[in-house]
């Protein structure tokens, strides 16, 4: 109510200043520059992708072939597995980021020494070049000479060929993704935990609650918005992930760490633009089919609390 009475005088003043119609001080054309760039380079490509995914498309021309590209995509074993790899990668990375992020945030908001140093050191990898991290860990994960397996052999463990063994490659890259990204999850959780009113912890202390009860009944439910954010963000990131995988394995060995995003790039390089775009549409559908219902579900729960 108060706002309407306040805004009125200004608008009538403007109109009484001689204009035929009161002009809003918030003109719609402010949307225009952003809308043009965003529309032309994001919305239009997203929409025409649906058409081009139905064509055989080369540098010169495109020919409508119906669902042929999708048929290829879902029949070629190397391409179908990329779909599963994408899902595994996204679930593993976001799951680990939630668990480790929460644990680290608990640790970094508790009474320990060198908190500032620890927060910085956990967060810094988020800002570093993904390709740089990927190449560094490719060397560290070298099966014979790499630092990781060298260290493991000191305590009598023979480390696997992290990136050369088909059954480990995808998970190894996912671990590096977590190494690089857990700092952001931690940061979000810290923001969530810090915003919990101290009264809850004091009341719990009066009731004689221990660390576990604090965590289970105060932190976990009240840090829920942070959990929602971490899950949503890392799922979106994980499903679209390309550069780390490309830097570390290029989808190999064989196709064992190929994800949809790397398939899109490979098909593009090979000149199969239609197939590449079909991959893009599949990725679009996978991301929206997972993220939209999930965020709706998670956010609804939050409102009910």
């Amino acid at each position, binding site marked *: 109510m108060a706002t309407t009475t306040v805004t009125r005088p200004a608008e009538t003043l403007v109109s009484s200043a001689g204009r035929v119609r009161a002009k809003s001080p918030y003109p719609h054309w*402010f949307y225009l520059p952003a809308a043009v760039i965003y529309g032309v380079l994001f919305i239009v490509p997203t929409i025409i992708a649906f058409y081009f995914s139905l064509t055989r498309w080369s540098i010169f021309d495109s020919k409508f072939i119906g669902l042929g590209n999708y048929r290829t995509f879902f029949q070629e074993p190397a391409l179908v597995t990329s779909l599963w790899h994408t899902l595994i990668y996204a679930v593993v990375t976001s799951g680990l980021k939630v668990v480790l992020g929460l644990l680290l945030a608990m640790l970094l908001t508790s009474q*320990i020494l060198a908190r500032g140093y620890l927060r910085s050191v956990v967060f810094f990898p988020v800002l570093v070049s993904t390709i740089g991290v990927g190449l560094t860990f490719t060397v560290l994960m070298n099966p014979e000479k790499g630092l990781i397996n060298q260290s493991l052999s000191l305590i009598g463990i023979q480390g696997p060929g992290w990136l050369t063994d088909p059954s480990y490659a995808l998970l190894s890259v996912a671990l590096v993704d977590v190494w690089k990204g857990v700092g952001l999850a931690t940061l979000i959780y810290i923001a969530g935990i810090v915003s919990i009113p101290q009264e809850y912890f004091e009341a719990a202390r009066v009731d004689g609650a221990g660390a576990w009860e604090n965590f289970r009944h105060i932190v976990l439910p009240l840090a829920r918005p942070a959990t929602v954010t971490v899950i949503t963000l890392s799922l979106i990131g994980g499903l679209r992930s390309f550069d780390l995988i490309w830097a570390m394995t290029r989808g190999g060995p064989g196709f064992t760490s190929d994800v949809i995003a790397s398939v899109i790039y490979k098909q593009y390089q090979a000149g199969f633009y239609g197939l590449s775009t079909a991959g893009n549409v599949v990725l679009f559908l996978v991301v929206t089919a997972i993220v939209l219902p999930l965020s709706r579900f998670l956010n609804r729960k939050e409102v009910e609390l």
Partner: protein
Amino acid sequence: MTVLTSRRPRKNLLLSFLAIVLSVIVFLVPFAFVLLTAIKDQQQASLLDFSWPHQFRLVQNFIDVVEARDYMLIIAFINSTILTVASVTLMVVFGAMVAFVLQRRRSKWNALVNALVLAGLIIPPAVVPTIWVLQKLGLFRTMPGLILVEVAFGLSFVILLFRAFIGTIPRELDEAAVIDGAGPMRLFFRVILPLLRPVIITSVVVQSVFVFNDFTNPLYFLPGDQNATVQLTLYNFASTYNTQYNLLFMNILLITIPPLVMFLFFNRQIVAGMTAGAIKG
């Protein structure tokens, strides 16, 4: 006294010790490895082990990396700087304009704009169709094309950051300016924008780091050695200098410096931007 001490629990020394040791092993050793390998000679670097350099070749390796491929790294640094400055400037100005009207004005467009902002955060860009559009516009393989692509992909995040912040600026200020005869342009650029300083710094810093580190978009939309951005030089080095690990790691070291500087100076703003944007998104 006992009440006081129990209210302020003592630092947990054992846990602190464990955490520090673990943080050194997990997070500092990889960075130390980059640093050490970057100053080794080629022979020792190719052993890939974690050891003290026999020879300190910091300066020589630096010169070698810079001179490689006709000073490609210098060109790449210039390209990356142009790309980052131009795209972040446009993104912030245009994003702030959208956020301002979106936050202030109730209209039938709001629902659509909000939906599009969210779409920009979630939907993976369609790569080849974007190249097709860029080609039609004559912008494929050009720096302006890549700049506009970065703007398009970064707008959503900026709009979210700004919208939340503009909500905290009282409307009375707008009204006073309007009464004083300010038009929309004056109102926004002279009255509102200066008040947005904190969120401008935050979004400039965060987006600069993103764009500077971006590998995928330059790879697709600005291919070619002449146009390489820093992330791509890294990639070229990795394949060219398959055995020259010292140079590869020197290169990694060099492109890690800009984000490190940003981090040292703007730690607080980065943290604010990452968490605020994240929680809204």
